[in-house]
């Protein structure tokens, strides 16, 4: 590294940074795999659609945790808000799916903006508990407002119209899968753009060293709030996708378990990497699905073991492990 630095480094260092945002061929791999899965495993499409939704949800956590360093256990608040928004619209006569997503994004984003403005002044454990507490309060409110939300029975009577007026959400989940895949792809493009923008770089700066960001004149609070609200909107869209494709919304959409398991999936894949969710979520959900079918009673034991193995052998998630291996290989010759 040093050898090449002396002479040709000037262009190299600058060029590398200037090109960091360009799409690399391997970045298309997950998408090709997802398209292939549609044709290879037609009977797994319902699980596939839920995996895609979970990826979107986990991606939203990655943006705030992995890039802005905001630890949260309450992201389900926004997921649930989005799910209920789309669900209530569909139950009251407006079942158009795409505008449902937009409404969900708006509601969840505003909720993120409002709650973020209050809680983002805190850090660490306090912030973690505040996010959790807000989600719990929202869930309790949804339970209390049984007349509107259906309470613990879940929201009944959603009627989602065919997608683009043409494609029914059928039993086999084909429409749902394609719909989720397209939405995820578009939002991934947006997220990717943000991550590589100066704004995204400054978020990384906040994660790496908040004190220094203040000292270089960065409006840290505002930056954190913006990404928090944006991630909330993404979570809301994920929630709306689940509501529309399963035609059902329950209190569990607001539950702490959803936030917790998304966090786990993200850590397995690798935090602070745009592709962590694409590795962690399918791995965890497919493993869970397989374990749960092989051993419906004690599958959690095997999932637990998997987590501990990841921690012991793949600190920084699987992508972190892969990166270390690549670097080691790069050093050897």
């Amino acid at each position, binding site marked *: 590294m040093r050898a090449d630095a002396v002479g040709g480094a000037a262009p190299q260092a600058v060029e590398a940074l200037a090109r960091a945002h360009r799409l690399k061929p391997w970045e298309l791999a997950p998408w090709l795999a997802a398209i292939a899965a549609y044709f290879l495993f037609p009977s797994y499409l319902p699980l596939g659609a839920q995996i895609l939704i979970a990826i979107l949800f986990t991606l939203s956590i990655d943006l705030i945790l992995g890039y802005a360093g905001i630890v949260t256990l309450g992201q389900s608040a926004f997921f649930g808000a989005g799910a209920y928004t789309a669900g209530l619209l569909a139950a009251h006569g407006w079942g158009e799916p795409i505008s449902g997503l937009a409404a969900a994004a708006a509601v969840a984003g505003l909720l993120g903006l409002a709650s973020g403005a209050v809680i983002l002044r805190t850090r660490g454990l306090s912030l973690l508990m505040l996010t959790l507490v807000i989600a719990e309060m929202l869930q309790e409110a949804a339970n209390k407002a049984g007349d509107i939300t259906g309470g613990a029975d879940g929201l009944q009577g959603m009627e989602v119209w065919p997608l683009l007026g043409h494609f029914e959400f059928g039993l086999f989940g084909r429409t749902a899968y394609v719909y989720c895949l397209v939405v995820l792809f578009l939002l991934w493009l947006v997220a990717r753009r943000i991550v590589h923008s100066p704004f995204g*770089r400054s978020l990384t700066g906040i994660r790496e060293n908040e004190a220094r960001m203040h000292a270089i004149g960065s409006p840290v609070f505002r930056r954190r709030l913006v990404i928090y609200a944006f991630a909330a909107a993404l979570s809301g869209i994920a929630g709306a996708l689940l509501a529309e494709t399963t035609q059902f919304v329950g209190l569990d959409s607001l539950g702490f378990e959803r936030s917790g398991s998304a966090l786990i999936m993200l850590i397995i894949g690798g935090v602070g990497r745009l592709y962590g969710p694409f590795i962690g979520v399918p791995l965890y959900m497919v493993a869970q699905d397989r374990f749960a079918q092989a051993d419906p009673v004690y599958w959690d034991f095997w999932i637990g073991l998997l987590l501990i193995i990841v921690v012991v052998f793949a600190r920084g998630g699987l992508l972190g492990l892969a990166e270390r291996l690549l670097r080691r290989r790069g050093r050897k010759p």
Partner: protein
Amino acid sequence: MSAALETRGLCKNFGALAVANAIDFRLERGARHALIGPNGAGKTTFVNLVTGALRPSAGRILIDGGDVTALPQAQRVKRGLARTFQLNTLFRGLSVLENVCLAIGERLGVAGDMHRPAGSRRIVIDEAYAALERLGIADEARRPVRELPYGRQRLVELAVALGLEPKVLLLDEPAAGVPSAESGVIVDIIESLPADIALLIIEHDMDLVFRLARRITVLVQGAVLVEGTPQEIAGDARVREVYLGERA
């Protein structure tokens, strides 16, 4: 003419403990000024008050004649105030070049942009690279900061602050933790800074202070003991007693 930086009656209490006690201080334009004092004299607290990391209990802070007491840190930076830290405070996981780019991006007001890729603004990267070249660390541009030896990181610390093109620069023990063989580089860089930057150097190392500073303020127990030229300070009996005496 207004001072580059001025504090009037600046106080800070932690409970019953006064860590800053009615500090009146003036940093003239283009000054080479040192702030010294024994351990626990409140030097770093003073820096934190001036930059806005701490809220004062009483008193006012003015930058270029404008009252900034109520402004958050970021706004003060926009008024031309920059600092370095006593302990390296850097983006350790990012490359040296990116560290400097972040500062320059904030200065140019492009850091809030969510649309255009960061890499497409060549002007930021080129400027950052040029800054690294001036400080002699361009060959480390692509390495993550955490892989650099501490002394080299000290230079990045300076480069980030200089990326803000400050009018007032607070240097909190710029050579702390650096082997004496390498500290010369840092001193050379500080000496060669543009004359219109007002420098306030917080320092323990007396050799450094007497080499760099043209005025010295001595802080003891949160209050200004005395201010003067190096010769005056060196000859002051009280300073010898509380400060130099302690060191002997």
